[in-house]
């Protein structure tokens, strides 16, 4: 047993830190630090910097433009990027890339992967449907062969950033007669194809990140199908597993703890400071300790993975506890504002940088991040679903 990272890893970590300190633009760092959404142009600006450094796709193999980082180094990198308040990698990098690399045709890889690396394409994920949220096997969007095309009809929902996207990777039903999890195919769809209509969903935070995507007789060339027809579920499951790595979000939560402590020791509350409230203080330290436990758990699981143990319920455990800690911290951040938790403007995050000029500067972003964060226990497999997964694996009931 050994807690320390090796000296090579420590040098790697310093290299990352130096890069992030020098190259991450201040305005982008500032938005991320406040939990505000980073606009598409800003995101691309940052990604071009990453691309120039060769670090755009840490999770891809070197031959496709990825890195040769070890699993430990990938972990360190994810942590350092988050600690430095860099934007998270996009769907194209985290989700589509691995699927194309594993299951795509040579042409698909040659065409799409470089475009993702160079930020020439922004991708969105067409997964959920009104009747298929937790239960993806219930997909209804139909794709029917018509010559060299599929004719796609249906509706997707909760599609993050569809309004920024050039393309969508998408699950569609190609064989309605098959069992629910069979008969699904994986298509790549250009968002400017006729028949696609995007309708914004305004969130609890009054921001626009989610969308409905309506597909009416959308023609998708058969060559845009990834892998075999009716085998899309297999690829989706592969992708889901990728999605669940590094889900604990420890570095992000640590940043929340730091913000919280800074505010609580600066914020006057009547006769004293907020941190003088023993109850508030205790709630902060409980969450800080929980976060420490989560971090060691993440490291312990990483060390099992390095040893070659197969992945079991660990990602679900990290997701459940990570999201609970995030929500707890965001709740405390809102409480730290006292009555300044009340003001809220609907365009404070995405449409413009304008925000209320009332209250202390540190309040900017906190309520929006809190509201948006209520989704952490809902999207990407709700915590109820995660508990079912763990139960199925360990109780077998």
């Amino acid at each position, binding site marked *: 047993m050994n807690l320390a990272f090796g000296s090579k890893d420590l040098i790697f970590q310093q290299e990352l830190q130096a890069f992030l300190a020098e190259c991450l633009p201040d305005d982008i760092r500032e938005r991320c630090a406040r939990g505000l959404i980073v606009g598409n142009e800003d995101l691309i600006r940052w990604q071009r910097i990453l691309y120039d450094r060769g670090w755009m796709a840490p999770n891809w193999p070197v031959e496709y433009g990825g890195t040769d980082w070890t699993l430990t180094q990938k972990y360190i990198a994810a942590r350092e990027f988050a600690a430095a308040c860099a934007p998270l990698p996009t769907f194209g990098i985290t989700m589509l890339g691995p699927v194309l690399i594993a299951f795509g045709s040579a042409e698909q890889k040659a065409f799409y992967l470089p475009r993702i690396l160079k930020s020439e394409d922004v991708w969105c994920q067409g997964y*959920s449907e009104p*009747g298929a*949220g*937790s*239960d993806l096997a*219930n997909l209804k969007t139909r794709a029917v062969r018509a010559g060299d095309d599929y004719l796609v009809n249906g509706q997707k*929902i*909760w599609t993050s950033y569809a309004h920024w996207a050039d393309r969508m990777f998408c699950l569609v039903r190609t064989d309605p007669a098959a069992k629910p999890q069979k008969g699904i195919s994986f298509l790549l769809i250009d968002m400017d194809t006729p028949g696609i209509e995007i309708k914004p*969903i*305004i*969130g*609890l935070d*009054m921001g626009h990140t*989610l969308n409905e995507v309506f597909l009416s007789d959308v023609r998708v060339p058969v060559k845009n199908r990834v892998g075999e027809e009716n085998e899309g579920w297999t690829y989706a499951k592969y992708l889901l597993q990728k999605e669940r790595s590094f889900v604990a979000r420890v570095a992000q939560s640590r940043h929340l703890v730091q913000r919280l402590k800074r505010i609580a020791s600066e914020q*006057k*509350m*009547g*006769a004293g400071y*907020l941190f003088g*409230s023993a*109850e*508030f203080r205790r709630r902060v330290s409980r969450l800080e300790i929980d976060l420490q436990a989560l971090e060691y758990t993440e490291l312990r699981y990483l060390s099992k993975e390095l040893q070659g143990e197969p992945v079991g319920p660990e990602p679900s455990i990290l997701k459940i506890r990570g999201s609970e800690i995030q929500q707890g911290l965001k709740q405390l951040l*809102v*409480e730290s504002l*006292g*009555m*300044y*938790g*009340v*003001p*809220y*403007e*609907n365009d404070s995050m995405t449409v413009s940088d304008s925000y*209320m*000029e*009332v*209250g*202390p500067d540190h309040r900017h972003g906190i*309520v929006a991040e809190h509201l948006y964060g*209520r*989704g952490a*226990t*809902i*999207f990407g497999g*709700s915590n*109820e679903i995660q*508990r079912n997964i763990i139960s199925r694996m360990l109780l077998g009931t």
Partner: protein
Amino acid sequence: MDFNLTEEQSMLRDSVERFVADHYQNTDRAALVYSDLGYSAEHWRLFAEMGWLALPFAEQHGGFGGTPVDTAILMETLGRGLVLEPYLSTVVLAGGLVALAGSEVQQADIIPQIIAGDLTLALAYLEPASGFDPSHVATTARSDGDGFLLNGYKCVVYQGPSADRFILSARTEKGVSLFVLEQGLPGLCRKDFKTLDGQWASDLSLEDVSVGPEALLGGEGLALPALEQVLGRAVSAVCAEAVGSMAAANEITRDYIRVREQFGVAIGSFQALQHRWVDMHIEAELAKSMSDALAMRLRDGDEDVPAMVHATKVTVGRAAQIVGQGAVQLHGGIGMTDDYAIGHYYKRLSIIDLLFGNQDYHATRYEALEPAQ
């Protein structure tokens, strides 16, 4: 011992229920939220016509002499509909202070206008460094001839943009005092903003705002007992409102999980969701009991009212969090959208948890009533 409504109280509830059904269930609340006023002037006239604005005031001023129990019944039903009209600011808070601390002249001036629906007011008692403590007042009122010169900063004044007048706390040589200020006085600067629960509010900065002696509400330096008493009634009012909002949120959630299907069955058939809903229901039930009892204790002027105010706000605050968060979670994705009603209940319930002091504030004050040795 009787928690049931009298016939008159039932009639009051029924009339408010009809108003909510007619004016909030089939119209566009969002349009009101984004209007300049933030609520409907027409509704406000209806409030006046129904006599609701007269409810708590003494008969000599044209009021009905209603009690905190009546206010609670009204507020609970308004809470079911997430009603936006400024009953709390104008009638409970400002009206309550005028009725309690105002001179005869001030009462005769202000109360009939409130009752007629012609005058709205807002209370400015908190400051950026005060937390939730009404006694922590840095704003000053310096004697200046007959009158006063006010300087300072007040924060998060609900209905700030639309109120005709403010009641504002400031510190004179004799201590914390209350003043009635007209909108638009020279030196009184307003920063307006929308609130999380879809209302309008303002921060106020005061620079040498000059007022005459008639602006003083109640005795100089005597504001705190009146403020505390009226804030206690306001706690009762928002707790009742929260009880109504929680009942509605639980019903909406119940109806949703009964019909929403996943894996081929209604999600309400999953035991984990059932039990979570049951826990939300239990919280709401306990909050209702405390809210009702607090209103009765306020009416009866019991000795232990302060402890009961704090205990009720703690109970209702926690229930509001559990019900609000649970309702969003049980809705899943649709709970995260602005279009669907449940999110608005969640937001209002979150705000009520902190209005007039959050759980930590009230628990601390509850404990201070019986100090540890």
